[in-house]
């Protein structure tokens, strides 16, 4: 019934997602595959993820092992990317930082997507005063200078990896809620919803079984771009010393040292690799998001 408007085409190309297909589309996966940048992005992200997950196996050194004899050593001599200000191996820290940065992005976006989907469904499904309340609340949160309020929240909660996740997660929900509300407002007038209602379906079951599967595509796209943005925010916060705290490595806090002119001038191995990693991760996720947007909603892009 949720599929009553859906034409699942493209035999065997099931992505496992209940996605809305309009008209004679080929499969989502088939369209995604045609997006060259998205494929490149997926490959790069996969490599980064393997590096992050396999960090304990791949890393040549303990990322926390301090060796003051090799302080800020240049690359070579057993350290592929040299050592940092505490004599720790930069390459090993880079891999372990990937775990931190990628998981902050994922968890933060998971938090705000959950909040956004919950509030957006309530607003879009029930309408009325619930809708007005949620949307005014969204207006309030959207009116904040986002980074400044995240910095404020992160510092109030105390800088740590979990509080960065929380700060981004608690403040990022309004766009998701608005998006879903808009979709639901139009969906709930459709005939298949009327049909479901007529067969005695209501409330939570109607939302979860019939409405959400048909409205979730733009949310997936927004969440994908959101992960990229969250990684950037985490990097910025950690760079400023307000996010993930050393000795735990994150790509952002590995760049903190570069604020010193000596490091910036003569030790590029300390700040170039983490910056490049952030750019690679964020760029590949953005490409994937673009690919998903094309694949999930072919009419949106080719205007």
């Amino acid at each position: 019934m949720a599929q009553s408007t859906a034409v699942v085409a493209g035999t065997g190309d099931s992505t496992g997602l209940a996605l809305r297909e309009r008209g004679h589309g080929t499969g989502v996966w088939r369209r995604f595959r045609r997006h060259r940048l998205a494929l490149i992005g997926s490959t790069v992200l996969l490599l980064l993820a393997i590096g992050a997950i396999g960090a304990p196996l791949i890393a040549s050194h303990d990322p926390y092992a301090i060796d003051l004899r090799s302080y800020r050593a240049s690359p070579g001599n057993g350290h592929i990317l040299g050592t940092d200000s505490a004599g720790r191996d930069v390459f090993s820290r880079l891999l372990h930082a990937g775990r931190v940065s990628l998981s902050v992005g994922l968890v933060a976006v998971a938090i705000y997507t959950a909040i956004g989907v919950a509030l957006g469904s309530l607003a879009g499904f029930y309408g009325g005063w619930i809708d007005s309340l949620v949307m005014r609340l969204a207006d309030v949160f959207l009116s904040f200078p986002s980074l400044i309020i995240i910095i404020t929240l992160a510092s109030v909660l105390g800088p740590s990896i979990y509080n960065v996740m929380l700060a981004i997660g608690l403040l990022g929900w309004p766009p998701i809620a608005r998006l879903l509300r808009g979709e639901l407002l139009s969906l709930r007038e459709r005939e298949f919803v009327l049909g479901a209602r007529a067969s005695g379906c209501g409330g939570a079951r109607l939302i979860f079984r019939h409405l959400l599967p048909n409205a979730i595509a733009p949310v997936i796209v927004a969440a994908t771009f959101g992960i990229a943005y969250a990684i950037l925010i985490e990097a910025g916060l950690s760079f400023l010393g307000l996010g993930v705290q050393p000795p735990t490595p994150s790509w952002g806090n590995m760049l903190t040292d570069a604020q010193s002119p000596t490091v910036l001038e003569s030790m590029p191995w300390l700040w170039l690799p983490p910056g490049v990693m952030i750019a690679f991760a964020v760029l590949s996720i953005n490409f994937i998001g673009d690919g998903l947007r094309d694949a999930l909603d072919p009419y949106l892009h080719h205007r």
Partner: protein
Amino acid sequence: MGRYLLRRLIVSVPVLFGITLVTYVIVNMAPGDPVSALINPEQISALGPGWLEEQKHALGLDRPLPIRYVYWLKEVAQGNLGFSYTDRQPIADKMVHRLWPTLKLMLTVQLLALAIAVPIGVLSAVRQYSWLDYLATIFGFTTISIPAFFLGLAAIYVFAVKLRWLPTAGMATVGQPPSLLDSLKHLILPAAVLGLGQAAPLIRYTRSSMLETVRQDYVRVARAKGLTEHAVVYGHALRNALIPLVTVIALNLPQLLGGTVIIEQIFAWPGMGTLAITAVRGRDYPTIMAINLIGAVAIVASNLIADVLYAWIDPRIKYS
């Protein structure tokens, strides 16, 4: 139009109210209090048991949260943003000094972003799916994917450290009489770094707005009249296609403010951003609240102005 403006203004009031409430609650979630934060913990016992309570009482910190909120709101409504916890200066005075550098930076960034984005966006729409369009897409994605602080550091490394063309920090050279050239030199790097990132969404919107406009009937009429393609695109379509940018610029202000905070920090730009970071590091809550409040008011106001401008520029839009 007058009624529309009035209604938009009235709708903004609960939003502003909510902003002050959320800010106040967040800031008061902080553990500890400014009195203890200012005092060396080893000396507290030496000052006697009642001292801490006395100080808190003097600052009004022993009252319940809702009452403190109302007091704060009353003062803010009268233009009193309070006093900094760290140096006891009135925050409003500090803000005045910090506002201009930030505005100067943001304005330059916005103009630069438009100067980059409009030609690229128009060209990639006119030559849709050409290599230029493709390149513009990649350029857009790349500039939003490189963290501004990393781009800033790289720019300092290349243009200030290696090439020695531009200064690394501040708004002017210390000990030199202020000159336009000197201040421009200081402005170039931070504005360029932020401008690149801000240009990306503008390119995207210019492109899609342009693509939509050239399919409109009046553009077809212009073509049917026998006008040259150049006259059709740049004389007829372009001006209407650029109208939505007013909204995009307003909606993008939160991002611009966030970018400014980080860029100011890197280039030691003496604006609101550096003040925000200093305040956060020093747990200077009144200053943090004031900055959040000013930022939020600016965003609400710019959205309002964008809506009104939009209605004014584009008479096709009817507001009820």
